[in-house]
């Protein structure tokens, strides 16, 4: 028996030694970026890009349509000859807004599909788990679909670039607007309990800190916001700033109606798409067994945005995207969420064009801050050698009774620190002035 026991002991020891090699500490292994090899995913006639999106799960209502809009723009580009002679092959992976799934599908895109770049990966809790991986692997990580500040970290994530106006900038613009137009009124806050909340507060506090009477957070997994809104009501809030994703903006509207809470709602860009909201409000009410008019409930809501609205018919970019929509995805509702994906795809197209015919990953990254990216957005990007933050500001609008949007304050830009909020320079080209395809 003795010898058998020692066999067991040896086997166990071997196993432990094997497992014990090295500590688990945080220092990343040496990167293998930029080995000077030909860029993965690129041929003479095509370029393969990937993204992770919530096509199912809690964030899918609303956000599931972003990649549909993007796909339409890539089809348009490809049908017109591609960019620098290359067609764009767009691979969308569903992560269900589940961070574990995000890591898996992103590794699939990088290791198996060998994408050239990641474009518009969606979500703060999801995308934050793959930033380090993408940067270690040297994969350009462009136009992240989230307004968290963490995408703008040139030292730690040199390949990652933001897209949306960040939550702090947006908070500053909202705060300044409220201070100027609702001086002395009591302000209540309803924010998502993650970076959305903390980053926004940094901006708001610079202007309305002494006006804020109550701050409530919600968790996306719990769809009852009655306690939060009752607390705001009890605190006597006259203005409610809602930093919520579309589903929770809709819940806020319905719950306010239910408890008889009439405050002026100010919604940030992530949850202020009137078309999506109308749909959600009516759908949720129906699930609760009542019939409401979305248009009536939305009237008077103030929101911020940095992209052309589908309801501002005179904007040349809206017209341009409507044409693409009518040709490629006529069955989809033409919403601001769809336009979000369309602008994102268009912007990536511009970066690809600027990167030139002789394509490498480094050239694409350099193209991001080349100053070539102008167009659909209402404010300029912050992209430079030292900044990877996306859009720099927003305008303030109000939803009118007829469903159109009225601009209350033209686009203003600001920084993520204590800088001033100032008028945006309008050097926005028209679609025909941007030569993208060919």
């Amino acid at each position: 028996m003795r010898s058998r026991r020692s066999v067991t002991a040896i086997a166990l020891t071997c196993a432990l030694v094997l497992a014990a090699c090295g500590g688990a500490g945080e220092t990343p292994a040496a990167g293998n970026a930029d080995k000077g090899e030909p860029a993965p995913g690129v041929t003479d006639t095509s370029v393969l890009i990937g993204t992770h999106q919530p096509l199912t799960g809690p964030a899918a209502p609303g956000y599931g349509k972003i990649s549909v809009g993007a796909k339409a723009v890539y089809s348009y580009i490809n049908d017109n000859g591609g960019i620098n002679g290359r067609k764009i092959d767009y691979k969308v992976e569903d992560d269900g807004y589940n961070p574990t799934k995000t890591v898996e599908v992103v590794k699939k895109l990088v290791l198996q599909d060998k994408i050239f770049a990641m474009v518009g990966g969606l979500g703060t809790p999801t995308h934050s788990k793959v930033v380090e991986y993408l940067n270690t692997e040297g994969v350009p990580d462009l136009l992240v679909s989230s307004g968290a500040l963490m995408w703008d970290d040139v030292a730690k994530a040199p390949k990652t670039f933001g897209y949306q106006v960040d939550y702090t900038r947006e908070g500053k613009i909202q705060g300044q607007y409220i201070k100027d137009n609702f001086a002395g009124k009591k302000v209540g806050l309803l924010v998502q309990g993650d970076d959305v909340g903390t980053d926004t507060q940094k901006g708001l506090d610079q202007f309305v800190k002494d006006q804020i009477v109550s701050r409530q957070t919600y968790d996306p997994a719990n769809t009852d916001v009655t306690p939060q809104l009752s607390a705001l009501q009890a605190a006597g809030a006259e203005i409610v700033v809602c930093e919520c994703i579309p589903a929770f903006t809709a819940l806020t509207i319905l719950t306010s109606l239910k408890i008889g809470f009439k405050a002026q709602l100010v919604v940030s860009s992530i949850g202020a798409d009137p078309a999506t909201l109308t749909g959600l409000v009516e759908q949720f009410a129906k699930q609760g067994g009542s019939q409401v008019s979305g248009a009536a409930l939305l009237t008077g809501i103030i929101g911020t945005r940095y992209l052309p609205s589908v309801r501002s018919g005179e904007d040349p970019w809206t017209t341009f995207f409507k044409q693409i929509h009518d040709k490629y995805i006529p069955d989809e509702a033409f919403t601001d969420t769809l336009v979000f994906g369309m602008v994102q795809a268009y912007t990536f197209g511009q970066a690809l064009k600027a990167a030139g015919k002789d394509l490498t990953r480094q050239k694409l990254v350099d193209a991001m801050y080349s100053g070539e990216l102008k167009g659909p957005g209402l404010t300029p990007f912050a992209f430079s050698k030292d900044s990877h933050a996306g859009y720099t500001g927003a305008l303030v609008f109000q939803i009118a009774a007829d469903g159109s949007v009225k601009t209350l304050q033209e686009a203003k830009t600001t920084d993520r620190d204590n800088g001033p909020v100032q008028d945006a320079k309008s050097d926005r080209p028209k679609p025909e002035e941007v030569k993208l395809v060919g």
Partner: protein
Amino acid sequence: MTTRLPPLVLHLLAALACLVLLVLLTLVTDPFTNLRIATVGYYLIAVAGLALLTGFNGQVSLGHGAFMFIGAYTVALLVKRVPAFPIWVDLLLAVVAGGLAGLLAGAAAARLHGPYLAGATLALAVGLPAVAQRFPDLFAGSNGLSFTVNSQPAGLVGVVPATRWQAWIVWLAVLLALVVLVNLARGRLGRTLRAVRDDEVAASLAGVHVGRTKILAFLISSACGGLAGGLQAFLLGTAAPGSFTPALSLSLLAALVLGGLGSLWGALWGAIALVYFQVWTDDFAELLSLRSDIADNLPLALYGVVLIVIVLAFPAGIQGGVRKLWVRVRRPAPSQRGEK
């Protein structure tokens, strides 16, 4: 005739053989397939733990994802706060943390039966991830923690792809845990567990301490859950509440039913199904080029259909089907034996 080896040695040798096979398998597959193989590994140990609890002991748990949550956060916090610990210590502590949580949950659950137990464990799956939101400074709220586990020996960096190395570690841990599980299940404890499952009164008359047995089953099972969660964190470098929804717990149970409740082999089929059905149905949905809102939901729907079909065709799961087939191969049907 040589003397029979004791079961523990036998199982260790079998595990060693499995490990060699797996290393070979990872060597001939690409780095991403290695990641999937590793994923099968950590699901296997989670489902195997559940098999011991539900299949052997008859306690239905709808909350096993909660123990994975505990394991994942244990490894995440250790990697971030105590980087000097080698990964095997982190994993061991994840097992301990999962086991302790299971001890508490089991002590409460031992008094509950059937649907009441299911409800209580479901509450665990729903409620526990909210802890991350309650203490955002420690657990980083909804965002969760992300980190890089640097476990590869310096000499192997660049020689062996990272995912291949990770697959080895995951399977080494899983096989060691399985050896323990198989020994427990085949031995006296296994008999006690089944006795309690089949008839509690008879078992207690036979001198079995029913409550203690049930708690022990919960403890072992949740320790496996803790290990699975720890391995997941090690493999993917993340621990976030969004990953441990009640849907995870339910899919673990579904995988167990699909694979076969009564044996640990069932856990293997269940884990493979959990990882690969999703992949195949995804590919299938892509192939059909359907409208986006249908294509997005098709994989889950197909998974449900397959689950129903398998359970209808083989009430004892895939393992039941395999065993039936095996019996038929070994002993030809009466008609083929020439009996009229």
